[in-house]
């Protein structure tokens, strides 16, 4: 076969539905089932290379490609935004290899792939949220070796993590973890919720929605099944706290109960705020529910 023939075959009809071959999809689905069966446990999987670079959402993408069907409606967000370059790129790729409908409306999507945010809208049991994960290991902060962190998880030996939080308070007067706040899932595994803000952590707790987490480079899949308890690590006298925006409001929709992006005006240098979840903000603006 000449190169030309190979290429013609490849680009016309050489790729399978949803890019991955059926064997790969089946394996990933099996690993998802295992992850759902053991909430918060990191399941290793044979992460495939994709035409999108490692670190750019290949874990989330492999989950999406493995579970998506022709009847699904897809939404992809990055930092809460549908129009962000990486979100657009991923959505374009999935659209090209599946032909499924896409949307920006959280309510209309059956599958949402996201990086760094959980949508503001409360999601339902008919929806699945897939989170892209750079570091699946919550204990990596205190222990660099995988062999050791696996032992710590197996024995639920989390003392070093608690010590880390304690020392943080001693040094800074508060737990200084911003995003990627460690949580305990189902009273058993400590889990990295991916770099979502603390604002989004309460949305994981006892939700109706299935949350799937994919780390492509680190080759791990984990899950928070619906109605599962997710508790941020905290002390009785030093409680977990979400981000505080003071009395700031979104300058578009007027919201004061959403996660806000801080924006600095080029010319005036003035600081103002806007919803990070652009779809939520758009709909509030159109509805006129905004101020």
């Amino acid at each position, binding site marked *: 076969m000449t*190169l030309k023939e*190979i290429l013609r075959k*490849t680009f016309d009809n*050489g*790729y*399978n539905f949803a*890019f*991955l*071959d059926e064997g790969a999809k089946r*394996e990933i689905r099996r690993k998802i089932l295992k992850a759902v069966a053991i909430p918060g446990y990191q399941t*290793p999987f*044979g992460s*495939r*290379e994709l*035409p999108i*670079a*490692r*670190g*750019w959402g*290949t874990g989330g993408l492999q989950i999406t490609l493995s579970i998506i069907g022709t009847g699904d409606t897809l939404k992809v967000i*990055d*930092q809460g935004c549908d*129009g*962000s*370059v*990486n*979100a*657009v*790129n991923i959505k374009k790729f999935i659209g090209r290899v599946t032909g499924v409908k896409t949307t920006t409306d959280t309510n209309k999507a059956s599958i949402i792939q996201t*990086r*760094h945010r959980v949508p503001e809208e409360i999601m339902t049991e008919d929806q699945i949220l897939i989170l892209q994960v*750079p570091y699946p290991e919550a204990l990596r902060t205190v222990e660099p*070796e995988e*062999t050791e962190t696996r032992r710590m998880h197996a024995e639920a030996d989390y003392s070093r993590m608690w010590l880390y939080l304690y020392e943080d308070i001693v040094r*800074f*007067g*508060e737990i*200084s*973890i*911003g*995003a*990627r706040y460690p949580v305990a899932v189902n009273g058993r595994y400590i889990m990295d919720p991916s*770099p*979502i*803000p*603390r604002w989004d952590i309460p949305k994981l707790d006892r939700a109706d929605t299935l949350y799937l987490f994919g780390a492509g*480079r680190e*080759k*791990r899949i984990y899950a928070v099944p619906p109605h599962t308890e997710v508790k941020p690590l905290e002390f009785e006298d030093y409680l977990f706290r979400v*981000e*505080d925006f003071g009395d700031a409001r979104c300058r*578009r929709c007027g919201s004061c109960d959403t*996660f*806000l992006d*801080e*924006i600095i005006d*080029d010319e005036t240098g003035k600081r103002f705020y*806007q919803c*990070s979840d*652009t779809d939520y903000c758009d709909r509030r603006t159109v509805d006129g529910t905004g101020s």
Partner: protein
Amino acid sequence: MGYVAVRGGEDAIKCAEKLLRYQRLRGGARPLTVEQIEGQLYLAVDRVMGEGSLYAPELAALAIKQAVGDTMEASFILRAYRTTKQRFCCSIPETTKEMRIVRRISAAFKDIPGGQLLGATSDYTLRLLDFDLKDESPQEMRTFIRDVSDIAREGNIPDTFPKVVEILRQEGLLVERKDSIDDRSISDIARQSMTFPESRSGTLQAMARGETGGLLLLAYSNMRGYGDIHPTIGELRVGFVPLKIIHPHTGEPYTVGEVRVTEAEVIARLDVEGETQKFTMGYGLCFGHNEVKAISMAVLDRAMQARKPEMPSEKQEFVLSHIDGIESMGFCNHYKLPHYVTFQSDLDRLRKVKEIHDTEGNLKKNL
């Protein structure tokens, strides 16, 4: 305005793609042919085949053209292509004893059975810029090729060479590995994520598709003193090994082609086996002609056998987790993606901590 800049991603991506192509073509030089890259930049092609872990010179050359000469990016393109390909069958395991050799040296023995064969190497050339290459004409090329046809003829090289390390093995001077590969349980790191301790086959696979620079860095750290295996190159070979499969109809072995590889066997410091002192060995093998990679791999293979791993190059998890070029490059580049949300979250913590600090300061002042 922040909002406007964040959106409109789709158009920006399209334009960036066009600009990329424009950038490559704007100089107005004649387009590079894939054939030229394959023939004249063959070391780059070999490197990309190794790191992309797909032996396909023509496709690798195409990837180099597409990646505008960036071998990491080209390897990534090739590997992303590889992952979609169906696996027809596995080849029959081969020893490199059958290798059709084009270069073979030993730094351990002056005279080796079969002799040293320098082959095509830049090792002893003076690295002076060769200005004559600026205007190499097809006519000159033809004349040169005719003139050197005598040395380039492969006919006077024997078909096979005995292995140098076999001499040591026969004398019982080499430590036999306890973790030698069992054919029935060869791992496949492209299908299963590595676990630690990783099997020997998985370890060698990870290194064979590792990034040359990454392997070199870790191996060099060991050579310089962050480790102490003291390597001697027992044998370095470059040549072609036959690729054989079981014929699906006849069930007989069938040669479907040959693969150019570089193999390094490194003899390293003594170890005690039973009651006697013996040499230990490190092994490296990679696609194409890439001696730095094969030697680095062999050094690391030996370094990772350290009984009490202390240095980075001796720790299997450390080495194997960080040598993949496609993964490390991807992750490094991902920091270019927006991190507004996490940064906002960190900012919130910093402001809070500062607030606590300032309040405490004021309290103390007022006391």
